[in-house]
């Protein structure tokens, strides 16, 4: 493998990895606060991509406007999902909320199949993202840089919210101990709604970028990326935002580099990636950056 090919593989890995990371953050935020695996997350991701499509085709919005509108709308949908499907079950056993999450996931998927139809749709891509740049022998689409950069920006914004704002303080407090937070006067439901809003906005952003990178829309498009990002979140240590980022990027690199260095294993690339992840979890059961938490009864 020459240097140019390696750089190309490296950039492809970075793009894929940053998309996984962005989705993984959504899983990890909700889990960190509610100890709930939000299975509907991958459908939120799908909705984000579709809403851009409809914004452009139905309302003739310019692409950046459609993108922002979609992210805002999807954040609203995320909050609504929490209000309808999770909040009433806050005091119920954890398994009930989990089943509710699976239900929401199936519901959204089927709604999408009925309204959007199962045929794959094309994706609009602004021309400036498509014109390849040549750096010596390396061929780079602006898109390949755009995705990791925007992801990085969104992650930094998130870190700012979580660690430097009052709402972020609330999030961190709830994730430590929800009961005590109530008693200390944190408006728990508002903070949780905000968490869902932010998580869903990130999912929408990653859905939109995923559709730019792999340009087709399908109602089940969220299932596999969502599943992989969830595993990335567990791998990095679920509940930890930094862990989700590291897990996501690592998974992207493992997937691409496996094929790059062992082309014969390409068909087993998922199996190979997951065997590696299982190995790491066996050594460090809480994930890379996970902290051991005592079970709250």
């Amino acid at each position, binding site marked *: *493998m020459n240097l140019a*090919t390696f750089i*190309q*593989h490296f950039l*492809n890995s970075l793009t*894929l990895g940053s998309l996984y990371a962005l989705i993984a953050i959504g899983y990890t935020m909700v889990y960190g606060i509610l100890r709930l695996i939000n299975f509907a997350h991958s459908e939120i991701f799908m909705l984000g991509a579709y809403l851009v499509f409809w914004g452009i085709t139905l309302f003739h919005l310019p692409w950046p406007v459609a993108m922002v509108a979609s992210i805002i709308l999807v954040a609203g949908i995320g909050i609504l999902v929490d209000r309808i499907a999770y909040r009433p079950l806050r005091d119920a056993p954890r398994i009930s909320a989990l089943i509710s999450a699976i239900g929401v996931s199936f519901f959204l998927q089927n709604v999408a199949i009925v309204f959007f139809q199962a*045929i*794959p*749709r*094309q*994706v609009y891509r602004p021309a400036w993202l*498509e014109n*390849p740049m040549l750096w010596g022998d390396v*061929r780079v*689409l602006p898109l390949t840089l755009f995705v990791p950069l925007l992801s990085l920006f969104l992650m930094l914004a998130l870190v700012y919210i979580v660690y430097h704002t009052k709402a972020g303080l609330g999030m961190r407090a709830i994730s430590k101990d929800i009961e005590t937070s109530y008693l200390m006067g944190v408006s728990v439901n508002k903070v949780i709604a905000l968490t869902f809003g932010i998580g869903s906005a990130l999912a929408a952003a990653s859905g939109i970028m*995923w559709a730019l*990178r*792999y*340009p*087709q829309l*399908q109602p089940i*498009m969220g*299932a*596999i*990326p969502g599943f992989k990002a969830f595993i990335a979140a567990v791998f990095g240590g679920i509940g930890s935002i930094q862990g989700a980022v590291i897990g996501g990027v690592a998974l992207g690199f493992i*997937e*691409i*580099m*496996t*094929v*790059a260095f062992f*082309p014969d294993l*390409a*068909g*087993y*690339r*998922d199996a190979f990636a997951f065997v590696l992840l299982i190995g790491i979890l066996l050594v460090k059961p809480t994930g890379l950056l996970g902290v051991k938490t005592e079970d709250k009864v």
Partner: protein
Amino acid sequence: MKRLVVLSLVLAMVCGFAGMSVAADDTVRIGVFLPLTGQNAFGGQLELEGVQMAHKEMGEIMGKKVELFVVDNKSDKVESANAVKRLIEKEKVQAIIGTYGSSLAMAGGEVSEKAGIPQVGTSCTNPLVTQGKKYIFRVCFIDPFQGAGAATYAFKDLGAKKAALLIDVANDYSVGLANFFKKSFNKMGGEIVATLNYQSGDQDFTAQLQEIMSKEPDVLFIPSYFAEGAIIMKQAKELGSKFKIMGGDAMDNPEITAIGGDAVEGFMHTTFPYDPSMPDMNPVAKKFTADWNKANPGKDPNVNAALGYDAYMIIMDAIKRAGSAEPQAITDALAATKGFVGVTGTTTINETHDAEKPVGLVMIKGGKKTYVGSITPEL
């Protein structure tokens, strides 16, 4: 005692039926079972029209009148078996045409096979339909056969010497086509320089494509479905690939240009060897197209109708060669079919009872599907 009565009644019925089947010597009875309602009705209706057109053209064989018995299998496996049962037991047919849909053909085939009545499939392309069966045939090629067609075109017409394969290992169709491509391409003297795999549902093919590009093949064969195919082509173009790309009939979907855009321009895929726009039609196909257009103004003939037509005609051909319309005689003659000229090209029935025939080739030009020509695959 009661059991004995029932038994003797059943016996009497069986004997009665057996006795009846010898009757009606002055007609040839052909059964047709097709999905005329349900989800596959679109294809079934067209195939029936093809069969009826052929029947109208050749309503008599060896001085005997040919009678058609049409039963709807309702796109359902159970109905399919019932339909064949009815054709054999009630209508006493000597040969059966059908059907559209491999699973329907398999369900019906079980019944024909047991009864020893020859059955000729129209558009059931799964290899399992005829596997291990003595009485089941078909006029369409089996899916993987297209792989050989693509390889032949790549080697002979495109002059490709080095080919690469990108295979969906979770999909029998994809693996089958790739195997046939490989065998045929190697046999002609070409070299497969890269074989990369992926799994259904994958969306990132950059790593595989990068590896393929480093081997500099002349042509890349991707026997996938159109949705994945379009994305593969898009990514290949983004990475700056220079090879030509080919695929199988699963790529035959108008959406492919919508999703792939200019990345699918020049893409070629194999398909059934009949299209009203094809340039190199044989006289049978020419006549079929003209007759169809006369009978159905404003509605283009399609390959399903052509296969229905061919299924009927290949049975007539077998009866003529056998000099008899007895089911066993028809079966033996069908198995020996060689160089039968039909609408969908020249057909030879091979030892697995599948049709060896030309493969059609389509290219996307200016965002539109264009029929390039028919290829006789090098097996």
